[in-house]
């Protein structure tokens, strides 16, 4: 090894160590969570990624290379920019809030319903047109308000046999921004079905009963009915 190569090597090594040092001492800022971040938010990210099968490492609250790889894998699967950094969009897709300054009031109720719905919509209708996603989200909300169904979003979504994606576990695949936006629209009152409570895919539906329901509208592969 020539002197010059050695010098370059030493400089590189110093830069590497420096990077490591700074990365480890980095504070978790409110805007993004990335390699080197630490704290409860990292624990939450690791737990979520682990539950969804993206992450195999330990849940230790330290954002290391394994967590970064898992974040990239999650971003790839959810159509997000694959930078390994948890910013607003990736956080939203994971169903977590980054801002540490958000008020401690019960805003979590609203958001947890939104993300639970977004996971159900992703499982049920990720291949459907955008309006089809809004319609599925609207069905969930129409059921909450209907006398024949449970009166909460979680009650409706987890009612046994109600949604295929819940029955076969697809609800645990996560979600993406478009599904979150569709649910946000539905929560704000958008309902392309004007009050439907059922829908089915005519190519796969097996229940004879569902075919007898009066059809209101067909959006993408789904038939929505009363």
């Amino acid at each position, binding site marked *: 090894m020539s002197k010059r190569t050695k010098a370059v090597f030493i400089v590189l090594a110093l830069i590497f160590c420096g990077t490591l040092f700074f990365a480890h001492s980095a504070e978790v800022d409110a805007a993004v969570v990335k390699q080197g971040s630490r704290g409860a938010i990292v624990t939450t990210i690791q737990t979520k990624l682990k539950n969804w099968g993206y992450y195999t490492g330990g849940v230790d609250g330290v954002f290391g290379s394994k967590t970064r790889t898992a974040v990239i894998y999650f971003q790839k699967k959810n159509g997000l920019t694959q930078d390994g950094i948890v910013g*607003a*969009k990736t956080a*939203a897709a994971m169903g977590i*809030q*980054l*801002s540490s300054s*958000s*008020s401690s*009031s*019960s*805003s979590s*109720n*609203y*958001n947890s319903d939104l993300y639970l719905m977004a996971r159900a919509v992703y499982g049920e209708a990720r291949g459907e*047109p*955008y*309006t089809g996603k*809004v319609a599925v989200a609207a069905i969930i909300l129409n059921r909450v*308000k209907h*006398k*024949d*169904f*449970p*009166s909460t979003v979680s*009650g409706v979504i*987890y*009612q*046994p*046999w109600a949604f295929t994606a819940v029955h076969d576990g697809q609800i645990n695949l996560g979600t993406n*921004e*478009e599904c*979150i*936006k569709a649910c*946000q*629209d539905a929560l*704000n*009152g*958008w*309902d*392309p*079905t*004007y*009050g*439907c409570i059922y829908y089915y895919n005519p190519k796969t539906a097996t229940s004879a009963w569902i075919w007898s329901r009066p059809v*209101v*509208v*067909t*959006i993408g592969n789904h038939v*929505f009915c*009363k």
Partner: protein
Amino acid sequence: MNKLSKVLAIILSVVTVVCVAVIIKLASDNQKLSQENGGMRCYETELENMYQKAYYELIDSVKNLDASLNKLTVANDKVTQQTLLSDIVGQADTAKSDLSSLPLENETLVKSLTFTNKVSDYCKSLQKKIISGGNITATDRSNIEGLAETSAALNDALQTMSENGDCKFTDCLKNNGRLEGISDGFDELNENSFAYPELIYDGPFSDAKQKDIEIDAPAMTKEDVLAKVEKQLSSFGLKNFEFVNEADNKLEVYGFSATDANGRDVYIQATKNGGYLSMITTSGISENAKTSDSEEAQKKAEEFARALGYDVKPVWVSKSGEGCIYVNLAPVVGDVIIYPDLVKVSLDQNGICGFESFNYLANHKIRKFDKMRRNSEEGKQYLAEGLVVNNVNTVLIPKNNKEILCFEYDCEYNGSQYFVFLNADTFAEEDIFKVIKGTEGYTVM
């Protein structure tokens, strides 16, 4: 030892070693398998236990519900009536939650759920009635008797099912939601068991007929509606309009597809009568998710709604984490904001991305208001102590299928924002909204 014995000894040793190895391997596999089975059994047992808990809790709460409803038929004192009503609401809610978590698929189960929903809803309305100084009338009493009879039938059926022996709910999952004994038990609860009087009261599950939405305008062909929609929306950069579908429900509409200036898919609905635009959705997410400021958004939203023929002004703005701004707009008559006739517009970086006018189409009519008997200043004394009033509006709000004229007080208390609605005539508190700060905006609950 001769050669043969040596060879035999070697073969025997090899066979022995192989046998021992095989036995060890089998034993270890077996242990692994039994551990796995043990794990599976453990999950199944835990799941079964949760179902059993829900089932026995259901039986218990229906038994108590039956008793409480019967007691209510003979209770004459308001305190007793109130106590029983709150017990009933709690028991019905527990039964409802248990019914919806059992893995059974059965039409009668749905009827049981409907029954518990209605009991809880109806009794809540009776509670409100008593609190506001009303009495349980003869009609109410006869309704309660009807509900008590139904609960007795449900109770009997559940008691019989539980006496018929042990049922394993996890078997349901392998049998398309059918479970011998329990499913048959629900099957036996026939249509008649759920025949109770029609319940008309102030509540979401009331049997009061929902009014049909009739648009007072001539019916149009889909071609004419398409032409109208195209004319209105092409100035906002939309093109490639095509008819896609129609929906006939509370509102009868035609659906059209289009693309916006950024090439995103747009879906549009407009009423068959009159061709009024009722909904727009735009697919895809805005790349630079940070939306423009909300004043600009309100201006754009108002221009858009007015271009579509809706005479409305912005009344509320909220932002979502997905880069959307939602602007709610309402007509303003004199200085009264008409909340029942809301129109909603959503915008992102690229401009308008959504529109919704169901409430406007369903409720809008020409309204006139008499001169107010009382004023909002006078109403302030009816607000809770400590509330700091920042703004007051006169508003019309929808409540239990009625419209109530109110003073809307925009207040602050302990660092949080509230909207308190006082009846403009009686100063009774009609509603309270709390403003929830989200990640990127506000919403009300």
